Each structure stands twice: as structure tokens, then as C-alpha cells.
């Protein structure tokens, strides 16, 4: 008989706690799908995700404008964020001295700690009036949202790309320098290509964060139910749709919001799976 010791008991307890997080994921998934699927089946999945009209009172549920809205601000956020994040991570990983790294890296990571409502507040009080007065539209827009989200996802993309760059062996840099490459050539031609899968994964995870963000988006995006055709158009995203209407929804309306959640869930899952695939392939 196997002896029961303190070690094995602690091991079992830790295992159960670890499994409970999987349990939570499982329950959430089941709940969202159980609540959301009936409406999707009733409307038809294709009609649900391609429908242009969202009229809960008349039980017309089409979420294309919100899907378009979510992707529009995600794309905008990436345009803002990716160049900055890449430059930051390359600078920190390859060029910054110890002192600079010790100051800049935590500062960027601190951006992730600012509550999103604060970003939203700054967006509403500063960015929205600025866009309205100097660029056009009423200020609540894809543009404003993209700028704010771009800053919000900066730490995610920067720190994952940074880790990917630091994981490239020193021998690559030496090999390049010994061929007469300058430091920038060594980084550009040898180090960045070697880190490319990690960098792509970082961008994908950043996309997931951008699409999942709610509070700041509600405050800045304007929340109109239209497919945005210009960066100055107001939009509503999948996340803000749920947050805005959940308070008063009931019956099939409430289920339709869960169905929105199902779509969001699938998009974010797909992005995460894609990112971890890319990372795993890079490890091999």
C-alpha cells in the first residue's frame, strides 16, 4: 500500500485547485452556450452573424454591425499599437542599457495596470472633443477608440515580443556581427526573423485583448448600430452591446445577448488557439 504522507496530500490539494480553474472555464462555456444557442438556432447562425438589424423589441437579432465594429476598432488599435510595440520591444531587448531597461519596461507594464475606465475617461474628456473640433464627426468614433485601445494593448504586445527577442540565442547576434553586420543589421536580419513567430503571437494576443475590451470602448465608441465606413463613424462592439443592454434585457433579448457572447467567445478562443499554435511551432 502506498504511504499517505503530507507530500501526497499537498499534491492532491494543489491538483484540485488547479483543476478548479478548468472547471470554471468549463462551467462558463456551458452556461454561455446553453443560454445563447437557442436564439442562434432560431434565427439561424448565418442570419444572426450577417443580419444588419438589431431590434430586440421586435425579436430581430442581427449582429453584423457589431462584428464589423469590433473588428474595425481592433484593426485600428493594431495600426496604432504594433509599430510602437515593435519599436519598444526591439529597443528594450537589443539596444537599451540596463538602467534604461529598468525604467522603461516597468513603465510600459504599468500601462496594463491602469483601469480601463480611466482610459475611457481620458478618451471622453480629451480625445473625443479633440477629434470633434479638429478632425470632424461628433468625436465618438472608431478613430478615438483605436487610439485609446492602441495604448491599452501596448504592454501586452511589447512584453511578449520582448520575451521572444530575448529568447533568441546570443550566438545569432555574434554570428551576424562576425560577418561584419552592424548592430541594426544583426537585429533586423537575424534576430527579428528568429523571433518572428513570438512576435506574431504577441500581436494576435493583443488583438484578443482589443476585441475583448469593454469599458473604455463604451465610453468612446459612440455605440451606434451601424457598420462603420469611415474612421470617424461611431460604432458599437460585441462587448459593449452586451454591457449596455444586459441591465434591462429579458427573455429572448437576454438570450440574444448571450448569443453575442458566444460569437465573441469563439473569436477570442480562435485567436488564442492560433497564438499558442504559433508559439508551439516556434519552440519546435
Amino acid at each position, binding site marked *: 500500500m502506498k504511504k499517505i504522507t503530507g507530500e501526497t496530500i499537498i499534491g492532491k490539494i494543489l491538483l484540485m485547485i488547479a483543476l478548479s480553474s478548468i472547471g470554471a472555464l468549463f462551467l462558463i462555456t456551458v452556461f454561455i452556450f446553453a443560454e445563447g444557442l437557442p436564439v442562434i438556432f432560431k434565427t439561424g447562425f448565418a442570419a444572426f452573424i450577417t443580419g444588419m438589424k438589431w431590434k430586440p423589441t421586435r425579436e430581430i437579432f442581427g449582429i453584423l454591425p457589431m462584428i464589423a465594429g469590433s473588428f474595425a476598432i481592433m484593426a485600428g488599435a493594431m495600426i496604432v499599437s504594433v509599430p510602437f510595440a515593435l519599436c519598444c520591444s526591439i529597443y528594450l531587448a537589443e539596444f537599451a542599457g540596463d538602467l534604461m531597461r529598468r525604467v522603461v519596461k516597468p513603465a510600459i507594464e504599468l500601462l496594463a495596470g491602469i483601469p480601463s475606465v480611466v482610459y475611457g475617461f481620458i478618451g471622453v474628456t480629451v480625445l473625443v472633443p479633440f477629434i470633434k473640433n479638429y478632425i470632424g464627426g461628433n468625436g465618438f468614433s472608431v478613430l478615438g477608440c483605436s487610439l485609446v485601445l492602441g495604448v491599452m494593448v501596448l504592454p501586452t504586445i511589447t512584453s511578449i515580443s520582448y520575451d521572444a527577442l530575448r529568447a533568441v*540565442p546570443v*550566438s*545569432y547576434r*555574434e*554570428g*551576424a*556581427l*562576425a*560577418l*561584419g*553586420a*552592424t548592430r541594426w*543589421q544583426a537585429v533586423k*536580419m*537575424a534576430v527579428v*526573423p*528568429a523571433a518572428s513567430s513570438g512576435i506574431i503571437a504577441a500581436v494576435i494576443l493583443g488583438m484578443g485583448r482589443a476585441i475583448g475590451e469593454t469599458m473604455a470602448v463604451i465610453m468612446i465608441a459612440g455605440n451606434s448600430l451601424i457598420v462603420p465606413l469611415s474612421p470617424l463613424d461611431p460604432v458599437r462592439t460585441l462587448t459593449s452591446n452586451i454591457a449596455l443592454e444586459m441591465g434591462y434585457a429579458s427573455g429572448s433579448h437576454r438570450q440574444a445577448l448571450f448569443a453575442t457572447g458566444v460569437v465573441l467567445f469563439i473569436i477570442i478562443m480562435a485567436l488564442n488557439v492560433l497564438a499558442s499554435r504559433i508559439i508551439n511551432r516556434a519552440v519546435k
Partner: protein
Amino acid sequence: MSGATCDEGNIILKISNLDYYYGSFRALKSVCMDIVKNTIVALIGPSGCGKSTLLKTFDRMSDLVAGSRVEGEILYKGRNIFDPATDITLLRKQIGMVFQHPNPFALSLADNIKFGPRVHGERNAEKLDWLVESSLRAVGLWDHLKDRLDKKATELQADEQQRLCIARLIAVEPEVLLMDEPCSTLDPIATLNIEELMRELKKKYTIVTVTHNMQQAARVSDYSGFMLMGELIEYSKTSSIFSNPRDKRTDDYISGHYG
């Protein structure tokens, strides 16, 4: 500690009174040696004797060590490489280095070879392709790999990787190849293959290699230098250093008393 006497005109690297410091530690002590064109020079000695450090000063990869400092001079074809006016990228094109652990880039075979020429401004696609072929031929990889040029270099076997790293150097048309224990991670057969390659390459290039393996030094090199605690104890023709060492410490080392 005088160098082997030879025809001055054939000296490609002339090292005089070279001292190298890591912080306050003197890692090289007044090293003097002349390296003759189209020969293979082996640096031998126990771990930590400074042989790799010496090798790294030849293409100034030693500059990368924080807090290091150099005194004395190395004349490459008559010009001091430590002169502030030296173009370091050009120097490293002329004096290339092969590392202990094969370090191909995570790029395709062809892009590995093209790396150096591209760094030095070569953009002509035909010239680049020609360089891929000729460099791979020079290291004996062409016939074997010509159909797999877009394969990732990091997927090759260790000795193929090391050959590729040599090919990558050859593509920038250097004059001197520095090899820092190029066979230490290879099996005996692969080691013999690389040695064979070195003999072939010395027709066109001058090779300085660091090795732990005295048989290898004896097999492959024309001149050998024995180093101990940062000093070049003895430097002469390999045949004479192994059969008739002048210094007792050399004798002790090559007969296996320490190291």
C-alpha cells in the same frame, strides 16, 4: 618567445606586444606572433589560457566584452586594426569567424549564405545565387543540399550546420578564417571531414584555429602556438613544436601532464 621566422612579405597578421584586459584582469600578456598567408595556425593550451580571447582580438569581436581594453597592436596587411579609423564591418568581412557551437540563423540555407553579402550591400539576385552555389560547393554541401536551399538551416545536422557557417563566411570573400574550436561539438567522423575541409580551404584562405585537441592540431596545422595563463609560451612549426618543444611547459602539456 620569438615567432617562427619567415618571409616578411607573406605575413598577413602581425601581432606585437598585445595585452588584453577584462577590467583589471590581464588575460593576454605581451603576445607576439606572425601569421603567414595560406597556412593553418593552431592555438593550443589548457582552458582559460587565453587562446579564444587571442583569436577574438583578430577580428575585434573582443570589443563586445564590456569593460575590456587592449594594448599593443595587430597589423593586418600592414595596418593596425586597433586604429580608430578602422572600419570594423570591413575588418570582419576580411577576417571572419566560425564559432564553437554552429550558429546558423533561423533562415533558409540560401538566406544564411546571402546574409553576409547582403550586409555588405550586394543586391544583385544572380550574384547572390552564384555565391550560394560557390560557397556551398567550397564546403562540400552543394551536391547534397542543392534541392533543399529553402530548408531551414537550423534543421540541418550539427556538422552540416558548421559547414554552412563556414560557407556563410566564404560568401563574403574573406582572407582570414578564425575558427574557435570548430569541431568540439562534432563526432570524430564529422571532425575529420571538417579538418579535410580546412586543408582544402587553406589554398585560398589563412586559417587560425583554437583547439583543445592536440592530435587535431598536429594533424591539421602548419604552425602551432602554445598558450598558458595569457602568455604565448612557444610558437613555431607544428612539426617541431610536437617533436622537439623548446620550453619545458610546452613539453609537459603536449605529453599530457596537465590541461
